[in-house]
């Protein structure tokens, strides 16, 4: 049985989603459009936090608030 939440508080669910339409060419050289979900917050020099396979931008939940004081954080959730 897992605990309901992790050991530390985080603001992930309070942050609204934003969406970006990204165009790319696939293996057949067809142009495709992918909708990327991400979250943006803060101001200042941009800092892009990218997640890995099988996770989402949620994996950056614990480092978000300390960075907000210094940077504009963009966290793409690639799975979308």
């Amino acid at each position, binding site marked *: 049985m897992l605990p*309901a939440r992790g050991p530390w508080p985080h603001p992930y669910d309070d942050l609204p989603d934003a969406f970006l339409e990204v165009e790319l060419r696939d293996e057949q050289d067809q142009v495709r459009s992918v909708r990327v979900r991400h979250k943006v917050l803060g101001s200042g020099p941009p800092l892009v936090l990218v997640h890995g396979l099988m*996770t989402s931008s949620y994996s950056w939940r614990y480092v978000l608030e300390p960075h907000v004081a210094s940077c504009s954080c963009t966290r793409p959730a690639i799975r979308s």
Partner: protein
Amino acid sequence: MHAPGYPFVRTRALNALLGAPLLGPGLASLVAHVSHRWPRTFVARNVHYLRKDMMSEEEAAEYGALFATMEGARVFARILHESVDPHEHARVVAELRARVREGTPFPCPTKILYARKDVMVPASFGPLFHADIPGSELVWMDDASHFLQVDAPSQMVEQILAFDPDEASAA
């Protein structure tokens, strides 16, 4: 940085299994079906932290959403196969080493944060990346496994904020 990076026995074996003529498609289909049928359990078993109490229902639900449809589960199985392709890893390493031979600098100042206790990727890859990216800085995260930012968030923030690209590129 926690990409597999260099071809090694575990990724080679997984790639060979997933690429085997008859076995591969069956195994990929099994991964897709299991992850779709039991998404939270699949996530809880496959996301590894140093501390065993880090995984929560909230997290299992968040990552498990990927497997809500069979299409999502199948895409995951396909990307998993691609992500352990030793030829692709070797190509990236060869490109890095060609840059070193030709004296072409890496395109951006680089700081490598590497987990000492990663259970998925050997820690020995840290020094290899460091050597293959001249001018990079290697910092060991001693008490972190595969997900550094969850195992050691304070150290992660400290290291990112301390990174000065101008200073690093001048080094």
